[in-house]
C-alpha cells in the first residue's frame, strides 16, 4: 500500500481500549525515532512557529513582533513573485513530467523487447537530476554558446541565451524536471503490471479499440498510482532548490525569473540572517504544500478508482 493509500486508511480504522502485547518492546525499538521526532522534527517545528512571530536575526534575542512578518510577506513583491515562479514550476512541470512518464511507461509495457535497457536509460537521469553536476550541465546546454544553440545553428537557427533570458530561464528548469521523469515512470510500470491481462482480452473480444481500452481500463485502474505520483511529485517540486541555485549562481536571476520560494527563503534566512522572516516563509510553504495535498486528497474522491 502506498503512503497515500496508507494515510487514507488511517482514518478508517477504529481503535478501542485494550491491552497492548508488546508495549515496552515497541517503544524501545522506536526510541531513536521518537527522539528524532521530538528533537529533530516537532521541536524545531514549534520553535520555527514561535520564531515566525519574532524578528530574530541570530545576533540579538528574538523580539515578539506579532503578525508583522506575515503582513510583510504579502507586501513583499519579490516574495509574491517567487510564489508565482514556484507555482508555475509546479503546475506546469509536474503534469508535463507525469504525462511523459505515463506515455513512455505505456509504450514500454506489454513485454517489449529490450525493456530493461530502455528502463535503465530513462531511469538514470532521475537519479542524477538533483545533483549540482547536472545543474552545471544544464547551464552549459542552454547557455549562449551551449549545446542546444550549437544544434540549432546546424539548422541555421540562431539561438539565444536561454538561461540568461528571463522569459525562458524558468522553462529550462521545467525541462530539467521533465528530464527526470524516470522515477514516476518506474512506478507507473509497476502499476501497469498489476492490471490483469484478462481485462484487455475481454475488451478485445468485445471489439474495443486501443483508445477505448486505455480510457476504460488503464486509466481507472492506474488512477491510484497517478494520484500517488501526483501527490509526491508536487510536494517535491515545491521544495526544489539546487538547480535554480546553481543555474542562477544563487541569485534567482535573471530578473528573479528563477527565484524559487525556497531560494528566496534561503537568501532571507541564511544570507540576510532574517531568521524570523525565513521562519514565517517556511510556515507559509508548509501551509501551501498542505493545502495542495489536502485538495488533492479531496479531489481524489472524484477521479481515483479503488478496486478493493
Amino acid at each position, binding site marked *: 500500500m502506498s503512503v497515500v493509500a496508507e494515510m487514507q486508511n*488511517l482514518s478508517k480504522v477504529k481503535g478501542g481500549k485494550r491491552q497492548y502485547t508488546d508495549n515496552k518492546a515497541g517503544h524501545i525499538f522506536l526510541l531513536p525515532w521518537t527522539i528524532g521526532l521530538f528533537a529533530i522534527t516537532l521541536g*524545531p517545528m514549534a520553535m520555527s512557529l514561535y520564531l515566525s512571530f519574532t524578528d530574530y536575526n541570530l545576533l540579538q534575542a528574538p523580539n515578539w513582533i506579532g503578525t508583522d512578518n506575515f503582513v510583510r510577506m504579502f507586501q513583499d513583491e519579490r516574495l509574491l513573485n517567487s510564489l508565482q515562479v514556484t507555482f508555475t514550476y509546479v503546475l506546469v512541470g509536474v503534469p508535463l513530467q507525469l504525462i511523459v512518464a505515463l506515455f513512455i511507461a505505456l509504450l514500454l509495457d506489454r513485454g517489449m523487447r529490450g525493456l530493461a535497457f530502455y528502463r535503465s536509460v530513462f531511469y538514470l537521469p532521475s537519479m542524477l537530476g538533483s545533483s549540482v553536476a547536472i545543474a552545471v550541465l544544464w547551464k552549459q546546454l542552454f547557455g549562449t554558446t551551449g549545446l542546444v544553440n550549437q544544434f540549432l545553428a546546424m539548422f541555421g537557427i540562431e539561438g539565444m541565451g536561454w538561461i540568461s533570458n528571463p522569459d525562458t530561464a524558468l522553462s529550462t528548469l521545467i525541462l530539467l524536471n521533465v528530464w527526470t521523469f524516470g522515477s514516476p515512470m518506474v512506478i507507473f510500470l509497476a502499476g501497469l503490471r498489476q492490471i490483469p491481462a484478462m481485462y484487455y482480452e475481454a475488451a478485445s473480444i468485445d471489439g474495443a479499440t486501443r483508445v477505448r481500452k486505455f480510457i476504460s481500463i488503464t486509466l481507472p485502474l492506474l488512477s491510484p498510482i497517478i494520484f500517488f505520483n501526483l501527490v509526491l511529485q508536487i510536494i517535491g517540486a515545491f521544495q526544489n532548490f539546487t538547480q535554480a541555485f546553481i543555474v542562477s549562481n544563487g541569485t534567482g536571476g535573471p530578473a528573479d525569473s528563477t527565484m524559487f520560494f525556497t531560494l528566496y527563503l534561503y537568501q532571507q534566512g541564511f544570507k540576510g540572517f532574517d531568521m524570523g522572516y525565513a521562519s514565517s516563509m517556511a510556515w507559509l510553504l508548509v501551509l501551501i504544500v498542505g493545502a495542495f495535498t489536502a485538495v488533492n486528497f479531496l479531489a481524489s474522491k472524484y477521479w481515483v478508482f479503488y478496486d478493493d
Partner: protein
Amino acid sequence: MIEQKTNSSRPAVDEDSSDPRTPAEVREATTPPPVNTYKPAPRTMVRAVIKHIVMVAAALVMIYPLLWMVVSSLRPTDVIFREPGLFLTTFEWSNYEQGWNALSHPFSHFLLNSAIVVLGCILGNLISCSLAAYAFARLDFRFKKIMFGLMLMTIMLPIHVIIVPQYIMFSQIGWVNTFLPIIIPKLLATDAFFIFLMVQFIRGIPKDMDEAARIDGAGHARIFFQIILPLMVPALATTAIFTFIWTWSDFFTSLIYLTDPEMYTVPVALRAFIDATGESNWGALFAMSIVTLLPVFLAFLIGQKFLVKGIATTGIK
C-alpha cells in the same frame, strides 16, 4: 535396456536401429512439438519497429547530454563551445588535473568528506529505520496509530520548516562545520521514507517464523536480529543505495552547515569551483562534474534492481 531407452528418447536418430519405426516416425514421436509457432503479423511487426525507433530516439535525447558532457570533459574549453558531436580527436586530460587542484584542497579531499558523510548516513538509516520499521510492522503498543500517522506525515514535510531552528540549535552546540548535523538526524530515523519502505517489506514476510521463534521463547531482540533482519536484506540494500545516491547529491544541507572548505562535501566543492573560475574553464568544470557523478552512476548500475523494486513497492502494493 536403460541405454536403449535414453537413446530412443534423443531427438537425433541413430543408424543402429533395433527400433522398428522409421527414422521419421521416431523424430516425430520424440521431438517436442515446436513451442513457439507464433509469427507476428506484418502489421504488428511494423508497429514494433516504429515503437523501437521512437524509444531509441527518446533514449538518445535523454542520454545525449550526458554523453556529450563526458566527451567534452576531455576537450579544450574553446572546442566545447563549438563542437556538438561526440567525436574526440585529442584527449585533454589536463582538464582533470586542473579541476582536481583548482581549490584550496585537492578534489580527493572533498570526495573523502562525502564518503564519510555518506557512510555515516547509510549506517544511521539502516540501523534506526529498521528498528522503527520492525516496531511498526510487527509489534503492538500504545500510540502506535498516532505515531505511524506522524511518521507518514514527516515523509511529506518540507525540510525548510525545520531547517532554521535546526541550524540555530546545531550552531549553538558547535556542530556547524562538522558532519554531525547531517549524520545524527539519520541515526534518529528522520528519513521516514525508508521506515515506510521497510514496513512494507516486513509486512510481506510470513509471520509463521517469528511466531515459532516466540513459542520457543525468543525475545523481540532475537527475532529482529536473527529472523527479520536477515530476511529483509533486499530492503536494506534498497535503503543503502538510495541513501548513497541522495546524500551524495544533497546540496542544501551541506550548503548550510559546511562553510569551511576543509569540510566541503562534493556538491558544495563543485559550487565553490564555479565561483572560483567564473565558468571560464568549462573543460575542468565538466571534468569535476563527471568525477562527482561517477559514484552515483556506479551505484545506479550496481543497485538498479533494488532501486526499481524499492520504488515500485513503496509506490503501489
